[in-house]
């Protein structure tokens, strides 16, 4: 039963036994096992990534009333492998005047910024890469590296489109980090810790019921952070051809592409972890670590599916609208929500569980309603000013 409960420890003990049997010093063996663990995790993720391509294509087809890949293998399952082979054997071009080092470094950093996120993901009660007590900040830090890779790619390509794309994307990512970090502090308040593991453990009630508005803001900010439609400023096929990765081909492009998909899936996962209890599901996670992982992945897929749903439903927003939306709406709402939550948390500290949940939920709804009303009246004002009707126009005359 131990293996089912805590497979990692059983496997590590087994490996340690083998390595010491070979006469390897303890420290080296530990380091080697650590590396092996990382390697296995990354390998599994990359395999998952390949299937994400297939999932993405299947889902978008369904949204668009098509069937999607269906020729190669059952349900077209082999199709992504064919894609990989195509990418691998494609000519790898570097534009003239490109900054070679940065040009080659960018896709690696892009992939890396996603993969290092998995270091703090609690897959099961016993399986957790690093229980960083600042996990929430760590997620943002990894996002910062993603921004860096995009700027690198955009600049080093020596291409105006890619530079503009990179600028836009960097501006968006920098801006949306703020509401994202702010709402991530709300689960932190509930858990009393920034550690992702602690946040998962603390969710006897899913944070979504305590802070529905925070969950929504997090999802919006995450979509912007991912650079996915409706916030796909960096790529914007119809304006910038393909944005910051225009000059990349072959596997380098493949890394950007795979990075983006995995990133989306990862943020679906974080959404699940921060607001939907992560691997927890009515105690099922205690039965077996594998079950816990399955629960987490199921939830992550739901989040991922919602992100896809948004992507293939909404149109792209203009860059200035988007930034204005962030700075003038999302960020203030996130701040107000954070303050409200902190206040309610202090006020309801001694309240019964149901009162606490109800109070939190209602305060969220209230903040959401008020902010929507404010936004509505602001937009009405703007519309009347532009149309030259109403009070705004008379005022400015």
């Amino acid at each position, binding site marked *: 039963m131990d293996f089912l409960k805590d497979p990692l420890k059983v496997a590590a003990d087994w490996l340690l036994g083998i390595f010491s049997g070979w006469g390897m010093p303890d420290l080296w063996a530990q380091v080697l096992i650590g590396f092996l663990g990382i390697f296995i995790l990354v390998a599994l993720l990359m395999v998952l990534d390949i299937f994400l391509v297939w999932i993405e294509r299947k889902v978008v087809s369904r949204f668009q009333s098509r069937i999607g890949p269906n020729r190669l293998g059952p349900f077209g399952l082999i199709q992504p492998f064919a894609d990989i082979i195509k990418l691998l054997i494609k000519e790898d071009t570097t534009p003239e005047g490109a900054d070679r080092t940065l040009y080659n470094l960018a896709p690696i950093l892009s992939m890396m910024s996603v993969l290092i996120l998995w270091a703090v993901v609690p897959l099961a009660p016993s399986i957790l890469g690093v229980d960083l007590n600042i996990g929430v900040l760590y997620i943002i*830090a990894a996002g910062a590296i993603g921004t860096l890779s995009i700027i690198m790619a955009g600049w080093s390509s020596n291409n105006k489109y890619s530079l503009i794309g990179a600028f836009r994307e960097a501006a968006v990512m920098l801006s949306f980090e703020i509401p994202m970090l702010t709402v991530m502090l709300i689960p932190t308040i509930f858990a009393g810790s920034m550690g992702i593991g602690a946040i998962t453990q603390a969710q006897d009630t899913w944070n979504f019921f305590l802070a529905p508005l925070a969950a929504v803001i997090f999802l919006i900010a995450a979509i912007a952070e991912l650079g996915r439609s409706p916030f796909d400023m960096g790529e914007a096929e119809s304006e910038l051809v393909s944005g910051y990765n225009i000059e990349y081909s072959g596997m380098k492009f493949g890394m950007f592409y795979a990075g983006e998909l995995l990133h989306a899936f990862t943020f679906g996962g974080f959404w699940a972890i921060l607001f939907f209890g992560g691997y927890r599901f009515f105690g099922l996670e205690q039965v077996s670590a594998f079950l816990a992982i399955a629960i987490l992945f199921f939830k992550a897929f739901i989040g991922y599916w919602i992100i896809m749903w948004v992507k293939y439903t909404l149109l792209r927003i203009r860059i200035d609208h988007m930034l204005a939306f962030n700075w003038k709406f999302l960020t203030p709402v996130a701040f107000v929500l954070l303050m409200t939550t902190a206040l309610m948390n202090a006020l309801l500290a001694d309240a019964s569980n149901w009162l606490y949940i109800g109070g939190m939920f209602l305060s969220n709804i209230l903040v959401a309603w008020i902010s929507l009303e404010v936004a509505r009246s602001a937009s009405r004002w703007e519309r009347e000013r532009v149309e030259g009707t109403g009070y705004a126009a008379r005022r400015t005359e």
Partner: protein
Amino acid sequence: MTVDQIIFLVIAAGTLIAAFRVVTTGNLIHAAFWLIAALFGVAAIFAILHASFLAVVQVVVYIGAISMLFIFAVMLTRKDMRDQGPQLNRNWGFGAFLAALAFAGLVFLVHGWSGVAKTASAFPSDFDAVGALGNALVSPDAYVLPFEVASVLLVAALIGAVYVAYNRK
């Protein structure tokens, strides 16, 4: 030498090389990227010092925001993508001398200071550095006032920067 020391030396050397490239490289964009590398090095130093919060904030604030600003600013203030002319001014030799003198003075001070022999004590059990830092920043007995002043400073800087850089055309 222990593993710790080797890791430290590697990181320190990398950081210093990156820092050196920041001040010498002719291409400002490269200088900015070298700065990012140096800042990563400093973040790693923080991690070695078990100041995990500082390490992560270093990445978020410096690499995520400040470096981006630098890159933006570099790109916004050029007539073309390549740099022309020397990047060092006429007095660079004297500047280098002064910097060396400052370094020598600092090393001399460190050398002469008795406290340098201190060793790091182990962390007390269940000591939560992040929690302690958070408490210190908002506790009225500790640093809530500097913290608030810093936040006011940031707001003022934000407004000032927007005002200064705003294009009135």
